[in-house]
C-alpha cells in the first residue's frame, strides 16, 4: 500500500492535502496551534518571524481571490515572502505541464506551494512528485482541488465549531446544499467524523448528493425541515451559479424555496445553533440575509479564524 503522501518518514505532517486519514491528534494539534496565532493580529507588529526568508508560492490554477488572499495574509504574518501566480487555466492547455511548472518554481528555491486546481488530486500529484524527487524540504498545501478537498477550510470550520461548542462528541452538524461538487463538505465531513462527532447530516436534493455518500459516515436527508431538527451547527454550502438552472436544478428560486436557510427553517434547529458558510454567499439562493446577518451567524468570525488556522498549518508543515 502506498504511504500517505502527506506524512514524512517519521509520520509528521509535511504536506496538507486532505483531512482524510489524518489522525485526530494531528488535527487537534493544528487547532491548538492556531489558537495563539489568532492573537497576533492584535499586536502592534502583526507578524512573527517564524517563516522569515521562506518563499511561499500561491499557485492558483483556478481563480479565487478570497482564498488566495487569506493564504497571503497568513504567510505574510509569518514573515514569509509570498509570490502569487494566477495561472488561471488548466495546466494542459497552457503547453507547460503542471509538474514542469512546479519543477521550475522549485529551481527558484520555493519552500512551499499553496495549490488551487480544478482537478481533484492535483496537489497529491505535486506532493508525490516532490517526494519522489527528494525535494522533501518543499511543502504543499492544498487550497482546494476539484471536488475533492479543501482541508484548510475544513480545519477553520472545525476551529469555529470548537470555539463556539467546545466539544465535538455531543454535536449534531448539518451540511446543506451541493454536496456533490463540494470539496468543503468532503473535508469537513472527514474532520468531523475523525474528531468523534456523533451525527453528521447532509441535506439536499438527490441531484446534488454523491453516490454512497453515506459511506463517509453521514446521514442523508432530502427534507430540509427533518434534517435541521435538533442541529447544533448548520453549514450552508455555496451553490455555483452555473448549477442554479439546468440539469441538476430547475431554478434558483425553487432551490431557495426547499433548501434556502430562512429564519423559519432555522427555528427547527437548537436555540443555540450556529450558522456557518464558507463564502462567498449567494444571498437569497442558499441563505436568507436575515440568517446570514443574524445573531446565530458566525460567518465573519470564520474568516478571521481562517487566517490563524492557515498560519498554524504553514508553520507546522514548514518545520517538518
Amino acid at each position, binding site marked *: *500500500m*502506498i504511504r*500517505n*503522501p502527506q506524512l514524512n518518514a517519521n509520520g509528521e505532517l509535511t504536506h496538507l*492535502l486532505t483531512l*482524510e486519514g489524518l489522525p485526530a491528534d494531528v488535527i487537534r494539534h493544528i487547532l491548538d496551534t492556531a489558537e495563539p496565532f489568532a492573537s497576533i493580529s492584535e499586536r502592534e507588529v502583526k507578524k512573527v518571524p517564524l517563516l522569515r526568508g521562506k518563499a511561499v508560492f500561491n499557485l492558483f490554477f483556478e481563480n479565487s481571490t478570497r482564498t488566495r488572499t487569506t493564504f497571503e495574509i497568513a504567510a505574510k504574518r509569518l514573515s514569509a515572502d509570498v509570490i502569487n501566480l494566477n495561472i488561471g487555466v*488548466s*495546466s*494542459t492547455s497552457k503547453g507547460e*505541464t*503542471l*509538474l514542469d511548472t512546479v519543477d521550475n518554481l522549485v529551481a527558484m528555491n520555493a519552500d512551499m506551494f499553496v495549490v488551487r*486546481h480544478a*482537478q*481533484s*488530486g*492535483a496537489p*497529491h*500529484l505535486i506532493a*508525490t*512528485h516532490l517526494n519522489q524527487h527528494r525535494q522533501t524540504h518543499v511543502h504543499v498545501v492544498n487550497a482546494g*482541488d*476539484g*471536488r*475533492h*478537498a479543501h482541508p484548510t477550510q475544513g480545519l477553520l470550520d472545525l476551529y469555529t465549531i470548537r470555539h463556539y461548542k467546545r466539544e465535538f462528541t455531543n454535536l449534531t452538524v448539518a451540511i446543506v446544499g451541493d454536496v456533490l461538487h463540494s*470539496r468543503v463538505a*468532503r473535508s469537513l465531513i472527514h474532520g468531523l467524523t475523525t474528531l468523534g462527532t456523533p451525527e453528521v447530516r447532509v441535506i439536499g436534493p438527490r441531484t446534488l448528493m*454523491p*453516490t*454512497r*455518500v453515506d*459511506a*463517509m459516515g453521514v446521514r442523508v436527508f432530502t427534507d430540509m425541515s427533518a434534517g435541521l431538527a435538533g442541529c447544533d451547527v448548520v453549514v450552508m454550502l455555496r451553490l455555483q451559479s452555473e448549477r442554479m438552472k439546468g440539469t441538476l436544478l430547475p431554478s434558483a428560486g425553487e432551490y431557495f424555496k426547499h433548501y434556502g436557510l430562512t429564519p423559519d427553517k432555522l427555528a427547527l434547529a437548537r436555540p443555540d445553533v450556529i450558522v456557518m458558510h464558507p463564502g462567498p454567499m449567494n444571498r437569497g439562493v442558499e441563505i436568507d440575509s436575515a440568517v446570514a446577518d443574524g445573531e446565530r451567524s458566525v460567518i465573519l468570525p470564520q474568516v478571521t479564524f481562517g487566517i490563524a488556522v492557515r498560519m498554524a498549518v504553514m508553520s507546522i508543515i514548514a518545520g517538518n
Partner: protein
Amino acid sequence: MKIEIKNGRLIDPAQGIDRVASLFIAAGKISAIGTAPPGWQTHRAIDARGLVLSPGLIDCSARLREPGFEYKATLESELEAAVAGGVTSLACPPDTDPPLDEPGLVEMLKHRARLLNRAHVYPIGALTVGLAGTTLTEMGELAEAGCVAFSHADVPLADTQLLLRAMQYAATFGHRVWLRPQDPHLSKGGVAHDGEVATRLGLPAIPAAAETIALATIFTLIRETSVSVHLCRLSTAEGVAMVRAAKQEGLPITCDVAVHHLHLSEVDIGWFDAQAHVMPPFRSPRDRAALRAGLTDGTIDVICSDHTPVDDDSKQLPFAEAEVGVTGLELLLPLTLKWAAEERVGLPAALAKITRAPAALLGLHGGTLAIGHPADVCIFDPAAHWVVDRSSLKSQGKNTPFVGLEVPGRVKYTLIDGVVAGGLAPLPANA
C-alpha cells in the same frame, strides 16, 4: 529445421491434452506429440523440464500505437513485448491516428508487422469512417485487406440508428461486430466508478448503468439483426448477469474481460494513482468478484490484456487529465495464472481463455498445438515468480498499476511459426 521440445508439461486446451510429452516441430508446423514421426532427426532440442508448453497466447486487444502515436510505442517495441509475454497473435483495435478505416492503412500495418517477423497481427477495422460515427466503412474491402472484425474501439457511438445500420451491414457479409458497452451520456466526463471511492476523492463518476443500458441496447439490436457481437471489457456485476441471461436466450454473443479488471477495483486508485485510470473504470470489489465468477462459469469467454502503452508525460497529470490505459502484453500470462491460482482454476481451463477461446473469436487457424497447425508455442515456467518493475518491461509503455507486485509465470521461449522468437533464456545450442 526440426525442433524437439522435451520433458515439458504439454497443455493444449483445444485438444484436451495435459501431460508430459515431447513436441515435434518441422517446417514451422506441429508435426507430432509424444513420439517422433517416422524418420525424424532432431536439429535442435529444447529441454523444457519443469516448464509448461502451451499454444502461443492470443491477445484479442493490444494497441500497437501505429500509426499516429509512435512516441508512445512502435510496432518494434510492442511486438518485442508480445514475444516476451508469450503472445504469438494479437488483435489491435482501430483507434490509431488515422483510425483503421481504409484498406491501405490495414495493409501497411499487416506488412510492417510481417517484416518484423514477430507476433501475428490481426487488425480490427473501424466500424465508421474516422470513428466519427457518421459514415459506414467499406467493411468488405477492409476484410479483404486483413481485418478480422469491426469495432468502434473506445469511441462513443451515441447514434443508435447508425449502430443498427452498422450491425445490419456487418451481418449482411457475416462480419462480427465488437462493441464496448458504455452509454456515452451516462459516462460523459466520468473517470472513475460511481461508488464510494469516486465520492470520497471527488472524481467525476461513471455509473454501472452506463454499461447495462448499452448492453440492453445492443441486445435489442442483435435480436433485430442477428449479427454476431463480441462485447469488449465487461466491468460490472449487473453486466455479467445480463450477458449470462442473453447467452441463455441464445443470442450470438461472446465477451471478454481485461485481465487487470480481474485483480483491481476502485480501491486501487489509492491517492489518485493515474496508473489506475482505465476505461471502463475499475469498479467495486463486488463487481470484480462477479467478473471472476463469470469467467469461471463461461459467461465471459476471453481474457485480454487491453494493452495500451502510454508515455510517462501523459500519465503524470492529475487523475482525470491523465490518459487512460495500462501496458499489458507482458502481464497477460502472469495475471491470468494469478487469477487461476486464486480461484483454483486448473491450468488448462485458464490457458483456454487466452489461447483457444480468442482463436475461435478471431477465427484463427491457431490457438492449439494440434498436428499440422502453425507452431506458435509459449514455453513458460509456472513456478517462477518475478516482481513487476519498469525495467523488466519490454513495452515502451511502462504504465501499469502492478509495479511492485510479485506475479507467477515467466516465459522462457516463444516460438512463432516454429522459430524461437524470443524469451528469457538464450537460444539453445544444437543437440
